[in-house]
C-alpha cells in the first residue's frame, strides 16, 4: 500500500515520461507544419518505424543498440524525405484537406507495408540501462523514463541550436513565416520542406526508439500516438516548436492524473476534453501569442 501523496507523485512521474514522448511526436508535427503548414498524419508511423527498424537492427543484424538506433533514425529520415518527394511535392497549391488525405493515405500505406515486413506481432527491445527501478520519495522511476527525458532534452536543445544558430535552420524558419520572401532572397523553399520531412522523420524515429522498451512496438502503434502528438502540438501552440514539448508534458501529466484520480476508463476522454477546452478558450495554444487580425 502507498499513500495518496505517493500515488500522485507516481502519476506525475508517469505523466512526465509519457508527456515527453507526446512532446517529441508533437515536435515532429511542428517541424513540418512550420515549413509547409501541413499536418502530417503519418507522423505516428515515423514513430512506429523508428521502433521496428531498431528491433530489426538488434535482432536480425545483431547490431549494438546505439548503432541500431542511429540506423533507424537515418532510415526513417530517408523515408520522410521519400514521402515528401513522392507524395507531397507533386502537389502544387493543394488545399489543406487534400494534403490531410494524402498524409492519411501515406500512413495507411506505411502501416500496410510494415505489417508485411514485420508481421502483426508486437516486439520489444531491451531497456537502455537495465530495468532496476529507482526509488524516489516513495514512488519509483524507471531508468528508461530518465532516458526518455534525456533524449527529449537533447533533441529540444539540439533543435533550438539548429534553428537559432545555423543558416539552414534560420532559413527553415524563414520559409515558415514568409515563403515568398524566403524564395526571393534565394532560399530554396522546396529543399527546406524536404529537410523538414527528414528532420521530423528523425525526431519521430527517436521517440519510437526510446519508448520501445517500455511500451512494445507494433505495426499499428502509430495511430493513437500520432493523435496524442498532434494534440500536444495544438495544446502547446501549432508552429511553436517548443510549444509541442510543453503541450506534451501538460497533456501527459493531466492525462495520468485524470486516469489516476478520476477514472482510467475515461482517461483519453479527459485528455481530449482538455484539448477541446483549450481550443475553445485559448486556441493559439499555451505558448502562442494572439495575432492581430488584419484583413
Amino acid at each position, binding site marked *: 500500500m502507498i499513500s495518496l501523496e505517493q500515488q500522485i507523485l507516481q502519476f506525475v512521474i508517469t505523466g512526465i515520461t509519457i508527456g515527453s514522448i507526446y512532446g517529441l511526436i508533437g515536435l515532429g508535427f511542428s517541424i513540418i507544419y512550420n515549413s509547409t503548414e501541413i499536418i502530417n498524419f503519418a507522423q505516428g508511423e515515423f514513430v512506429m518505424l523508428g521502433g521496428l527498424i531498431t528491433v530489426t537492427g538488434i535482432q536480425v543484424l545483431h547490431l549494438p543498440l546505439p548503432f541500431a538506433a542511429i540506423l533507424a533514425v537515418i532510415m526513417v529520415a530517408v523515408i520522410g524525405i521519400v514521402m515528401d518527394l513522392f507524395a507531397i511535392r507533386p502537389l502544387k497549391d493543394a488545399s489543406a484537406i487534400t494534403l490531410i488525405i494524402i498524409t492519411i493515405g501515406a500512413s495507411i500505406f506505411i502501416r500496410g507495408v510494415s505489417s508485411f515486413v514485420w508481421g502483426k506481432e508486437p516486439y520489444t527491445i531491451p531497456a537502455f540501462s537495465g530495468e532496476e527501478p529507482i526509488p524516489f520519495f516513495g514512488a519509483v522511476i524507471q531508468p528508461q523514463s530518465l532516458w526518455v527525458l534525456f533524449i527529449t532534452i537533447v533533441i529540444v536543445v539540439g533543435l533550438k541550436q539548429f534553428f537559432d544558430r545555423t543558416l539552414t535552420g534560420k532559413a527553415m524558419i524563414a520559409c515558415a513565416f514568409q515563403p515568398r520572401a524566403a524564395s526571393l532572397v534565394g532560399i530554396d523553399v522546396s529543399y527546406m520542406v524536404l529537410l523538414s520531412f527528414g528532420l521530423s522523420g528523425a525526431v519521430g524515429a527517436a521517440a519510437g526508439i526510446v519508448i520501445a522498451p517500455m511500451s512494445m512496438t507494433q505495426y499499428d502503434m502509430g495511430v493513437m500516438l500520432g493523435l496524442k502528438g498532434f494534440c500536444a502540438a495544438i495544446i502547446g501552440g501549432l508552429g511553436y516548436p517548443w510549444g509541442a514539448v510543453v503541450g506534451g508534458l501538460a497533456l501527459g501529466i493531466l492525462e495520468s492524473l485524470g486516469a489516476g484520480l478520476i477514472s482510467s476508463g475515461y482517461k483519453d476522454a479527459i485528455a481530449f476534453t482538455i484539448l477541446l477546452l483549450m481550443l475553445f478558450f485559448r486556441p493559439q495554444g499555451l505558448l502562442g501569442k494572439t495575432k*492581430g*487580425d*488584419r*484583413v
Partner: protein
Amino acid sequence: MEPLLITEKLTKDFGGVRALDNLDLEVREGLIQSVIGPNGAGKTTLFNVISGVIPATSGVVRFNGEIITGLPPHRISNMGTTRTFQNLQLFCDMTVLENVMVGMHMRSAGGFFSSSFRLPWIVAEERRIRDRSIEWLQLVGLEMESEKIAGSLPFGRQRILELARALATDPRLLMLDEPAAGLNLKETQDLAGLIKRISKLDITILLVEHDMDLVMEVSDHVSVMDQGRKIAEGDPETIRNDEAVLKAYLGEE
C-alpha cells in the same frame, strides 16, 4: 440634415501602431465622397472598422443616427451599408450570377427548413432573386458572362462583379475600397461612368482610391488622411491645392 455616416474620435491600434487616430469623418447622403491618403494612412483600416470586420479600439461610428460600432458585419450590412475589398473577395467557385445572388441574401428570407423542402414561396422567391440579380448584372454590363465561373473572369471584370454583388444588397451607403487598383485606363474610365450611374440610384458612395484622376473626376467631396488622422477635406478643387496634402504626398515620395 444629419450626415448618413459619422465617425467620432475613431481610434484603432494594432499592437503599438496607431492605424486610426481620433478620426472624425462625415459622409453626407447622396454624395460621392472619397478618402485619399498615402500608403499606410489607415484608409483600409477605416473601412474594416466601419464594416465591422475588425473592432475599434475606441470612438464610435454612427450610421443613419444609430451607433454601429461593435456590431458584427452582417448586422451593419443589414442596416444598409456594404463594401467591396481592395484584394478581391469573390466566391471564385460560384458563377457570376450566383455571386450576385448571394448579394441578395439580405433581401430574401429562405431558411434551412423552407429551402430543403422547397416550399412554394421559396420557388417564387428564387425567381425574384434570379431576375433581380440579372438586372444588376445588366446595370454593370456583365449579363453576358452570368453563367461563367467567377474565378475565370479577367481581373477587371472581377472588380466589376464585386461591385455588382455589393449593389445587390441594395445599400444606402456603398464603400468601395480601391476599385480601380489593377485596372487599365479604359477600364478605369468605364468604372468612373459606372460609379456616377450608381450614384444616380440614390446610393451614397464612400470611395478609397489611389487613382487621383478617378477621385477628382467622380468625387463631390474629398477627405485626406495621413497616419490615421484627417489632414484636410473639401471639394476636389480645394484639395488639389491644399499644402498639407501636397506635403503628405511629397513627404512620402
